[in-house]
């Protein structure tokens, strides 16, 4: 159970977040939606430690926690997949999966252990990549997104945040990534997905949280809600 309670954040005169609440629990996919400038990015930056909130608090299992930098977020079991994926195109899949947390003995890379872990991880997520020794530059967009998501799991996190995971993908690759997100949920992870694409949101999320102009503007059980109601909440029209 992870909770955001009354978090506010100002950038100069702009109120990016205004007393926002958000609950995330294990085994649930929550979609965070809203128009441009609604505060989605700021909210995930607060949770992933890239930005510190002015007011409000973050709670893990009811206990207040401090997240002042990305490192603290990671040690709390929060893993973020950025929209730009942050992959090193020249490194192979294994190198990217373990980027910055390479398995080592003294300073020597434990290549065989890393390759075995990588293969196990990828096959448990049903990610198909013919040769994991080729540079990531050779992979398709969907495969890269899968590698970035798989990397988020290397540190055994509890919560995975995905920023626009399907934004740059074609139809088939989008379907692959959505499948992958469902598998994360089946593993018992809490998943927070930011998306502009309401079709994807409906396909994959259990709950939809709407932000509008930095405030909570509605929360829906996705399966029981019509797309029109969500759109109305996003645009602020009376539903």
């Amino acid at each position, binding site marked *: 159970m992870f909770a955001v309670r009354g978090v506010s954040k100002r950038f100069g005169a702009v109120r990016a977040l205004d007393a926002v609440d958000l609950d995330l629990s294990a085994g649930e996919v929550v979609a965070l939606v809203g128009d441009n400038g609604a505060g989605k990015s700021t909210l995930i930056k607060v949770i992933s430690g890239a930005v510190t909130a002015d007011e409000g608090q973050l709670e893990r299992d009811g206990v207040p926690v401090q997240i002042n930098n*990305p490192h603290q977020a990671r040690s709390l079991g929060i893993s973020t997949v950025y929209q730009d994926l942050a992959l*090193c195109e020249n490194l192979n899949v294994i190198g990217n999966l373990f980027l910055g947390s390479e398995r080592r003995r003294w300073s020597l890379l434990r290549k065989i252990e890393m390759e075995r872990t990588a293969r196990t991880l990828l096959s448990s997520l049903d990610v198909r990549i013919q040769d994991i020794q080729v540079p990531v530059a*050779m992979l398709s967009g969907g495969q890269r997104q899968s590698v970035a998501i798989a990397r988020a799991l290397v540190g055994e996190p509890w919560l995975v945040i995905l920023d626009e995971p399907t934004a740059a993908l074609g139809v088939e690759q989008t379907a692959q990534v959505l499948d992958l997100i469902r598998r994360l949920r089946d593993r018992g992870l809490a998943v927070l997905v930011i998306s502009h694409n309401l079709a994807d949101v409906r396909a994959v999320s259990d709950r939809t949280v709407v932000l509008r102009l930095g405030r909570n503007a509605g929360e829906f059980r996705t399966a029981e809600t019509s797309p029109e109601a969500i759109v109305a909440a996003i645009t602020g029209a009376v539903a």
Partner: protein
Amino acid sequence: MTTLAKALRRPAERAARPGGVGSWPVVGGLIVIAIVFGSLNEQFLSAENLTNLALQLAATGTISLGIIMVLLLGEIDLSAGSVSGLCAAVLAIVHVRHGQSALLAVVIALALGAVIGLVHGLMFTQLRMPSFVVTLAGLIGWQGLLLYVLGRGGTINLPFDGAIARLSDTWLPPWSSWLIVVLIVGVVATSAVLNRRARRGADLPLQPVHRSILRIGGLTVLLGAAVLVLSADRGVPLLLVIFGALVVSLDLVLRNTVFGQWIYAIGGNAEAARRAGIPVTRLRIVAFVLASTLAAFGGVLAASRLAAVNQSSGGSDTLLMAIAAAVIGGVSLFGGRGRPYAALLGILVIQSITNGMLLLNVDSSIRFMVTAVVLAAAVAIDSLSRRGSEQ
């Protein structure tokens, strides 16, 4: 069109593979050079000339090795030539004018190189100056300092029978050359067997056996041929062994340590590396320190060969040849791709052209133009392979 694209794609995929076989075009180029010059002048492939060639490689090759360290980060070091000259001058001053031991003089020269690299690294990372500008200032400034410390005399001769000069006049007796070959092949074969066993134990896919056998066999033939040829003249030069050892150790470090992995990661995507918690600033400084230290060592080797340091030490085309060697050998200027072997292959190409043209009595104007064409072709291959890999 599609076949052309495919033909271009194939070397591209190879070149983009870190630790792959991206050097085949260069090897092909070397074979062409050997055939052309060998048929134009029977001297070119003689044991004596090939031994001279081996001697000529070491100094600029070592400087090139340092440049590869910064190229891998996607940066550039224009100061390497000047630094090599300056450090050689300091070596000569400490050794000859102050009468200190050769070893101490070498250590001081290398330490000076390290300090210069540290200054470059700090200017690059802390003052956020582009590496091009930092090292351009270095190129001019350290050359100025070289002229200043040499003073009016301008030339310092190293004693011909001194330890430094003898460095480049030491030849391995055949038995020790062969011993080294046996050791290298033994270590490579053993590690291949051990690696295969470990992979089988971990249930990982194995490469076909014949590929390993081919690789080890090829290595044996290559090393054996080199020793055979060089022993027919004066023997394997110590200088070549030193340079080879540097290339091999740097390659092992880059491929098998966390440090090396991080260098490649920064060269590939510095922002991603930073977000993954890699100490990008520290590694950049280390790379600049390594680059200048290797440049200093290259300067020491050049001084040893010339048995003197003068105002043109590390000047003229030293820097350009060192950069060209790295690029011809397959190191990408965009960072993150290439291996230290590029220094060896690239400098082989450049020195063979230089050496062959000198044998043919061709004017240096022609030599420069031919080198330029080779360099341009190498960069074109690099760009095409990049485009190919980006799909």
